[in-house]
């Protein structure tokens, strides 16, 4: 008999059950943090097929007539999401992110798990929308004043739901009557429009820099890092399940064009930003655009590059946000002006912020360089102007961070308030792991290759 955790249902229920517990423990944030990181780590180990709990190669559970499917591809994606969530929760354990951080992040983790597991796709989109509703509380985190980021994220994710739902109906009609091929262009158009919103294509991009600026840093890492990963996995799964979606190659042209526009816009605006949060948001946009360009190449190597870029983007965001969180403990503001000279107070925070930021820019000797290099190598051979745009966007993001660093190190202020030892240890460990990853990317690349290899819609 199947136990609760023997199937994919447990991957949704466990974080969901832990969320109210974490809420009850909100006054003891250390306990709530331990619970949240413990749950995420446990789930990461479970999906990585520890012999503790057997998970079959493709577990399927039916819930209210819908399927929760654990495939080899979404298992790898889930393991990555849980592992990164565990890192974020561990950092949040000692760097306060507001009372609702742990319970809401756990509930959001359950929604993301559901979105990665559920079939058909329209339920995945509904779960992403419910996740956006929860994210509103996480982004705002009881901060009075501007509500721009949370509202934009909620509105745009909600507007993405109708196209997917109607497309789902068209797909059902087509499945029962395969001769009705006239439905497919409409379904294709609706799905493309839905993904354009969810993947923050121009002009639906505005929430990302706003979330970077307004959300507590680790909450921003969670939303900006993990949510696009789930959306991208949904896109790959749909391309795999519905070959007609990319028939004729127009889908790849759109992906490439949309990605290029995103990179160009992010690059054009990043350099002139005057706050670390917005700069991080534009850096994240550039990386997302780069992943879309890579997928839009329509080749297996492009898909591999896209997977690498997206995974390393999430890691870079966590490191950047850890550094920013240390700085924002001193001044609750992320502008260069407000943080002037503060870099001297937390050298580790400064190092994490700069290393993560430069990684988002694809700077050499950072994790982000691996994916950016793979993309540039592909583009130089086929589309030199696009390669130039991607390169210049990276330069712009790096320039923005170097400007920020100059402000952080302006003047010579002594080490007035050092971070607690445990905080330094945690951020130091995360930073060291990222440095190791940048020096030895071969640790990570086989997993990315395996994940990309599981999608065969581009051939093998």
């Amino acid at each position, binding site marked *: 008999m199947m136990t609760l955790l023997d199937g994919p249902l447990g991957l949704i229920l466990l974080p969901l059950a832990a969320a109210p517990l974490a809420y009850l423990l909100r006054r003891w944030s250390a306990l709530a943090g331990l619970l949240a990181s413990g749950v995420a780590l446990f789930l990461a180990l479970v999906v990585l097929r520890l012999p503790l709990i057997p998970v079959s190669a493709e577990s399927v559970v039916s819930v209210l007539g819908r399927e929760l499917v654990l495939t080899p591809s979404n298992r790898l994606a889930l393991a990555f999401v849980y592992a990164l969530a565990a890192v974020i929760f561990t950092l949040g354990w000692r760097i306060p992110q507001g009372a609702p951080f742990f319970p809401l992040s756990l509930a959001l983790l359950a929604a993301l798990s559901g979105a990665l597991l559920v079939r058909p796709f329209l339920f995945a989109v509904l779960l992403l929308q419910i996740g956006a509703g929860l994210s509103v509380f996480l982004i705002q985190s009881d901060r009075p004043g501007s509500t721009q980021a949370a509202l934009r994220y909620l*509105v745009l994710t909600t507007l993405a739901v109708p196209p997917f739902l*109607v497309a*789902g109906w068209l797909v059902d009609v087509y499945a029962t009557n395969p001769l009705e091929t006239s439905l497919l262009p409409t379904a294709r158009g609706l799905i493309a429009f839905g993904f354009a919103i969810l993947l923050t294509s121009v002009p639906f991009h505005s929430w990302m820099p706003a979330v970077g600026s307004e959300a507590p840093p680790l909450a921003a890492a969670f939303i900006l890092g993990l949510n696009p990963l789930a959306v991208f996995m949904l896109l790959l799964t749909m391309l795999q399940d519905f070959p007609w979606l990319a028939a004729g190659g127009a889908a790849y042209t759109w992906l490439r064009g949309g990605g290029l526009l995103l990179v160009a816009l992010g690059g054009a605006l990043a350099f002139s930003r005057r706050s670390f949060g917005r700069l991080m948001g534009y850096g994240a946009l550039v990386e997302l655009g780069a992943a879309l360009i890579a997928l839009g190449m329509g080749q297996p190597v492009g898909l591999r590059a896209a997977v690498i870029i997206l995974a390393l983007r999430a890691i870079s965001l966590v490191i950047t946000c850890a550094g920013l969180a240390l700085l924002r403990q001193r001044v609750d503001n992320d502008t260069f002006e407000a943080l002037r000279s503060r870099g001297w107070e937390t050298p580790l925070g400064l190092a994490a912020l700069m290393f993560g930021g430069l990684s988002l820019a694809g700077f050499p000797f950072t994790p982000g360089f691996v994916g950016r290099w793979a993309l540039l190598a592909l583009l130089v051979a086929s589309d030199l102007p696009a390669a130039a745009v991607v390169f210049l966007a990276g330069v712009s993001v790096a320039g923005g961070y170097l400007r920020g660093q100059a402000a952080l190190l302006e003047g010579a202020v002594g080490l007035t308030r050092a971070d607690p030892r445990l905080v330094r240890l945690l951020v130091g460990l995360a930073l060291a792991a990222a440095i190791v990853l940048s020096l030895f990317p071969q640790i990570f690349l086989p997993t990315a290759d395996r994940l990309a290899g599981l999608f065969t819609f581009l051939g093998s």
Partner: protein
Amino acid sequence: MPTLSELLARLSFISVTTAAVGVLVTAGILIVVQDWRLSLLALAVQYIFVGLLLTRVLVAELAALKAVIGLIICLVLYVTAVRVRWGQPLAAVGRQPAWRLPTSTAFRLVVALMGGLVSYNLATRPGLTLPEVQDPAINLACYALMCLGLLALGLTEEPLKAGMGLLTFMSGFELFYAGLEQSLLVIGFLGLANLLIALSVAYLASVRAAPRQGETKQP
């Protein structure tokens, strides 16, 4: 005591056309009027009209349930609006005349009229009839709710008003989608999503109105 569906059945004397015009007018009010009391009243009436229109597409119990969810949403927004003094800034409480006409009203009226005309034009074009929507009045209501909802959403950065626009848009979509898909699970998910939107915008309206550091509350 009458059941929900019986209550909705008692309102069946209202024709589909009247209900469609009703949603057009209430959605227009959401654009033109900036006063939260009137906007909330319009939203509540709109949910009742949408419930009536849904009885032509769904079983009466489900249509009634959707109308009740809508009214619960209005209640959530009402409680929030009271808590944040109906959107008046702290400094303006007691000083501002309650029913003054803002200068942007004329502009909003023109926008609402144009939105209504566009909806009517779309709904009456033969090639643009929404699939599985047989009744032209329901077709018009769907277009009107979606168009005017989007306009209401785009004309403000204030969470409560923007939320009303978003909920109006979703009402229009659900009215259309109910003809395509009648799965209880999807209807349940959409209801949950709507409730979450209402809670989220209510929360955002509360924190937006909360005094910032250094700002003091007036007695």
